[in-house]
Structure formats: structure tokens, C-alpha cells
């Protein structure tokens, strides 16, 4: 694999990689997971790796992620970490149930450490396909198949492991579940991780996903997460992306919401060479509510692209969306927020806001709100801005004796805070605040912001 390779050649390389490793990919997995591979591969052949300029990839060249040359492993690597220190969280008050995945593989000793209530099912998706077959079959690859995407079909064809989480009906999880995704190895690596989360009726749960890289190789993680949120459930999904600048991260998060459910997602990108996040939320039954937030603070030559699709399929649902980006140096970013209000989805309330600050003339941001409204009794709004630090506000702070650098910091933090304050875990709000402040001050090293004490 070389840097000059094109999308099509790369696609054939991946198809051929699949064909040569079918037995290894399928090994140990039941038919309910394996049966999706062939159709997914055919879809992947049809869709390919999206090219830059395509509708959904106008400003993002996926070959910057795919074209780097990676190895692939079809077996779990041995997690050789001192689990005692690993599971010590550096946030004193952030008390969570911690689960670890390395290179997309679920750590088998998680159960010993996580101390999850016995009602909660947390296991590898491999095990879930066997042990919780009914749940698995009902939800696996249902939402992903509804939105055929090149990168998610690629994942479906290759997926061998990931996390499965089940919060039973009526269960209220007191502490958040923290999932730590580690990427490491002695060689560059491509990983397809597949997660499935089912939040039962009236359940309440909060998930914090931390993505990290431990070694300095090129990594490409292509993660698909499907979440089914049943009636009246409350579900939060916080994703802290903090990978090094040689890493590429593609995430596809699918959320289906049933009657009266309430979800919040928050994607915080602190570091990462190349990041593309897809979020698909389907408000499938009435009175459901989705809050979709994101914040990215990037510099150097980093690239972050957030794509969201909120599907108001039925009446009386509400969505609020807020994405903010601060770009320094030659960083580039994009936001594409699609909101679909279907014909009968009356009384829909949908609000979208995307605000961006380019700190330098060389930073670039592209934003595209995309509202498709087919109902006539709705309240929808969107707003997008790209600007610089407010000079008037800067002077105001300086005129009170606050130094230029510090004043800029305060204004950037204030800008970011609008996203942070929507977090529904109080301790995490503080922690986010600290991380963002450190990141803005340029004091956040790859590992320092890490929740994991690995070295």
C-alpha cells in the first residue's frame, strides 16, 4: 500500500484481503453474525471508499486515512498491560465501571475489574452473538444496513469483535460505564471494531468512550456502533477522542429511539490526525428527544469532519444539535448536518447550530446545514458561523489587565463551554473543562489527558 493509491485500487485490495481471510474472519462466530458478511462485501464493492467531492465527503479525502498502509490481524492480541494500574482512573471523582478494548478486541478480564451490577450485560460482541442470540439477532446490523455507507459495510464484512452492552428494562445505572479503546502495536494497524448497545425500556445509562493510541504507529480505526434505545429510556454517549496525529479515526454511530426516549451524544475531539464521525439518529417513535453535541479543538495539519443525520420520522419529537470547532495552524474541518423531517412528522422541533473559530488565516472550515422538511407544522432552525476571536471582547479583557494570551484562552474556553455545559455527568463536565483548557493552552500531551495510567 502506498500513499499514491486511489480509492478504487484500495477497495480491491480490501476485497482481496477479505477473500483471502474468510475462514479466519468467520472462525468461532455463529451464522447470525457471519451471514451479513457476503452481502456487506457486495455493498462495499458497489459503494467503495467514498471519494472526496461526493455529497457526504465534499471536504474529506478518506484516502488520507486508508492510503497509509496498514497491517491487519484476525486474532485477538494478548493484552499485556498491568491491569491494576490500567484500571486506576486519574479522575478522582469520576467513578465509573471501566471496560477495556485493545485494537478493537474486548478484554476478557474486564468482568473482574468493572464491578458492574449483575443485571448489566457487558461482554464481547462475539460472546453476545452466542450467549444473547435473541437480542443480538434483533439488533445487529439493522440500523447500519438501513444507511448503506462504504465504511460501515466494510466494517460489517470484517467485524470480529467489539463491545456488547445491555441495560435491562427499568434498570437505572448509577455510575457511568467507561469504555477505553486502546490502539497499540509494533506495526501500523487497521481495525474494524463493532459495538452494539441495547438500552431497555425505562432504563437509564451513561456511556463514556475514550479513544486512545499508545504507540506511535499509523492506525486506522473504523468503528461502527449501533444503539437501540427503547421506550422512555435515557441514554448518554460521550466520546472523547484523543489519538495521536498519525492516527485516523472513522466512527459511525447509529441510534434508534423509541417512544419517549431521550438521548445525548457528545463527541469531543482533542487530538487525532484524521477524524470522521458519522452520527445517524432516528427518532422512530413519538415524543423522543435527541441532543447531539460535538466539540473539536485541532491544530497542526489535523482534519476533523462531523457528519450528522437526524431523521424525524414521526411527529412530536425534538432534536437539538450543537457543534463547535476551534482550528489553529493549518487544521481543516467540516460539518454537515442533515435534518430530515418526514411528511407526517408534525410538531417536530429541530434546532441546529454550528459555530467555528479559525485562529489563523491558514485554518479552513467548511459547514453545510442540510434541512429537508416535508411537514408543515414544525419548528426548525439552523445557524452556522465561521469567524475569528472577537477583537472587541479581547480588548475588553485586556483593558482589565488580562494578558493577550490569557484573554484569548478565556474567549476560546468560553466558546467551547457552550458545548461542555450540556454534559449530564457533573464530574465529567469539570473534567471536560480541564481537558479543554489544557488542550487550548497546548499543555495536553497525548498521554496526559488520558484517563489511563499506562506508563
Amino acid at each position, binding site marked *: 500500500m502506498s500513499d499514491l493509491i486511489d480509492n478504487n485500487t484500495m477497495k480491491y485490495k480490501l476485497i482481496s484481503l477479505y477473500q483471502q481471510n474468510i475462514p479466519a474472519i468467520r472462525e468461532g462466530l455463529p451464522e447470525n453474525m457471519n451471514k451479513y458478511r457476503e452481502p456487506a462485501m457486495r455493498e462495499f464493492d458497489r459503494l467503495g471508499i467514498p471519494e472526496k467531492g461526493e455529497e457526504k465527503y465534499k471536504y474529506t479525502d478518506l484516502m488520507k486515512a486508508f492510503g497509509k498502509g496498514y497491517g491487519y490481524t484476525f486474532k485477538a492480541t494478548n493484552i499485556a498491560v498491568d491491569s491494576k494500574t490500567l484500571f486506576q482512573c486519574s479522575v478522582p471523582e469520576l467513578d465509573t465501571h471501566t471496560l477495556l478494548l485493545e485494537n478493537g478486541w474486548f478484554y476478557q478480564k474486564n468482568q473482574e475489574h468493572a464491578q458492574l451490577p449483575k443485571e448489566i450485560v457487558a461482554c464481547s460482541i462475539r460472546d453476545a452473538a452466542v450467549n444473547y442470540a435473541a437480542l443480538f439477532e434483533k439488533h445487529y446490523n439493522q440500523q447500519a444496513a438501513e444507511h448503506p455507507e462504504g465504511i460501515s459495510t466494510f466494517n460489517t464484512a470484517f467485524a470480529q469483535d467489539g463491545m456488547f452492552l445491555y441495560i435491562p428494562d427499568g434498570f437505572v445505572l448509577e455510575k457511568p460505564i467507561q469504555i477505553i479503546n486502546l490502539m497499540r502495536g509494533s506495526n501500523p494497524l487497521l481495525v474494524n471494531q463493532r459495538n452494539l448497545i441495547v438500552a431497555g425500556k425505562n432504563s437509564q445509562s451513561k456511556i463514556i468512550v475514550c479513544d486512545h493510541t499508545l504507540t506511535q504507529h499509523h492506525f486506522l480505526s473504523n468503528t461502527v456502533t449501533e444503539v437501540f434505545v427503547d421506550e422512555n429510556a435515557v441514554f448518554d454517549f460521550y466520546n472523547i477522542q484523543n489519538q495521536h496525529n498519525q492516527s485516523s479515526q472513522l466512527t459511525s454511530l447509529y441510534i434508534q429511539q423509541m417512544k419517549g426516549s431521550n438521548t445525548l451524544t457528545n463527541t469531543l475531539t482533542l487530538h487525532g490526525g484524521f477524524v470522521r464521525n458519522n452520527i445517524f439518529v432516528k427518532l422512530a417513535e413519538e415524543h423522543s428527544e435527541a441532543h447531539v453535541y460535538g466539540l473539536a479543538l485541532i491544530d497542526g495539519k489535523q482534519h476533523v469532519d462531523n457528519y450528522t443525520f437526524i431523521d424525524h420520522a414521526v411527529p412530536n419529537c425534538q432534536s437539538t444539535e450543537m457543534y463547535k470547532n476551534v482550528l489553529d495552524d493549518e487544521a481543516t474541518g467540516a460539518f454537515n448536518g442533515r435534518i430530515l423531517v418526514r411528511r407526517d412528522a408534525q410538531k417536530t422541533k429541530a434546532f441546529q447550530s454550528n459555530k467555528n473559530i479559525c485562529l489563523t488565516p491558514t485554518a479552513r472550515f467548511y459547514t453545510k446545514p442540510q434541512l429537508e422538511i416535508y411537514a408543515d407544522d414544525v419548528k426548525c432552525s439552523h445557524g452556522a458561523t465561521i469567524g475569528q476571536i472577537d477583537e472587541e471582547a479581547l480588548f475588553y479583557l485586556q483593558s*482589565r489587565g488580562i*494578558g493577550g494570551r490569557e484573554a484569548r484562552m478565556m474567549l476560546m474556553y468560553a466558546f467551547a463551554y457552550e458545548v461542555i455545559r450540556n454534559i449530564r455527568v457533573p464530574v465529567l463536565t469539570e473534567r471536560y473543562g480541564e481537558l479543554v483548557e489544557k488542550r487550548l493552552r497546548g499543555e495536553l500531551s497525548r498521554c496526559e489527558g488520558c484517563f489511563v495510567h499506562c506508563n
Partner: protein
Amino acid sequence: MLSIKNLKASVDGKEILKGINLEVKVGEVHAIMGPNGSGKSTLAGVLAGNSRFDVTEGTVSFNDKDLLLLAPEDRAREGLFLSFQYPVEIPGVSMVNFMKTAVNEHRKYLGKEPMSAGDFLKMLRDKKQVVEIDDRLTSRSVNEGFSGGEKKKNEIFQMAMLEPKLSILDETDSGLDIDALRIVANGVNKLKTAENATIVITHYQRLLDYIVPDVVHILYQGQIVKTGGKELALELEAKGYDWIKDEVKV
């Protein structure tokens, strides 16, 4: 304390200040009056260091330092304070954090240790009383959603916190009802000592009923055209600005 000599400044190439000369001594209150567009706010902005204005000629010394060479934050740390005509709203920056940072940056400049949280909060409580400012306001973001009067009170509150040597009040009376005006003026008077000085910039004489100046200057077309005692303000009030315009023409 402040010595301005032949100060000229322009905005976007247009000359606004056309040679200002002004001396302010410790303990004095100066009023600068003038019609709209005479350059009052430009003078305030230039002194505070707003980069919108280009100084093209002249010198300003403040406590024997060349003020024009200092960054805005250093002017503030040296003891210069500007009460803004239009205070800026800064969502997301809390008043408490704003003031704590400002006070500590001043202290750092003077080689002092940062203030302890306890001392700071005590100071905050004490100073709030100067302008009868509400707890509600200090717990919010800087000026966000404040009424016109609240914003002006907040300016004087910040002045109380920072204890400047020279305060420039730029149209602090504009947009204030009579009660708010009285509170703001009282605040300014309470902060007055023999060691500091004040420049009150105003269009109307009204504020000068409350803050009594030692010297009154009339600014017109970028120059100080008349200087006198407090009675000059009354004369101006009685005769109107046309009087000055006519006099200058002659």
C-alpha cells in the same frame, strides 16, 4: 500623572484627534465634554490602547512611563482604567473568573502572590456594595443579558475591584435613568481618593451635578478648544454646543 502632548490619531486613515494637549494631576477630576463626533471616545480608546486607532503623532506619559509603548493589559496593570461606553458581552466567561483573573494578573505584574480564594471572595463582597450590584450579576457571564444600567454599574464595580490610579469614564451616564446615574456617580465618588484621578467624558452636564470636576475641557473637532472650571460646564449647558461652534469659527 497623565501628560498628553500634541496627540494625533486616526481611524481608517481619517484623522480624528488633531493635536490634544492635556495635563491631569493626582487628586484631580477632569471632565471632557463635546458634541458627537468631536473625538471624545477616540481619546478614551487611544489612551486604553485600542488597536482600532492609529496614533500618528504626539506623546502620552502616564506616571513617567511612555503609555503609547505599553500593551493594553500593561496600561491597565500600571493603573489605567477605562469604563466603556458600550461594555462588551462575553458569554461563557463568568464575572467571578473574569475578575479573579484580572486581579491576579495585576498582582503578578506588581510582584505579588495571587489572592487566596477566601480573600478574593471577601473583596468581591465588599466591592459589590460600592455600586449596590446584585449577587445575581456577579454569578453570570460578563455583561451577558445585563440591562444598560447593569452594564454601567458593572463597569464601576470592576473599577472598584482593580483600584486604578486613573479612571476614564467614557459616557458612563449614557442610557442611565436617574436612579442608576446616582448609584454609579456615588460609586465613583466613593472610590475617589487623594492618590487617584478621574477623567469623566460626557456629552451632558447632568453627570457633573454628581461628579464635580475640578477642570472642564471642551473637545471639538479633535482639539481641546476651551478649558475652565466647573462653571464652564454650566455655561455650555445654558448656551449649547452651537456657542462653541460659533466661537471656534471666529
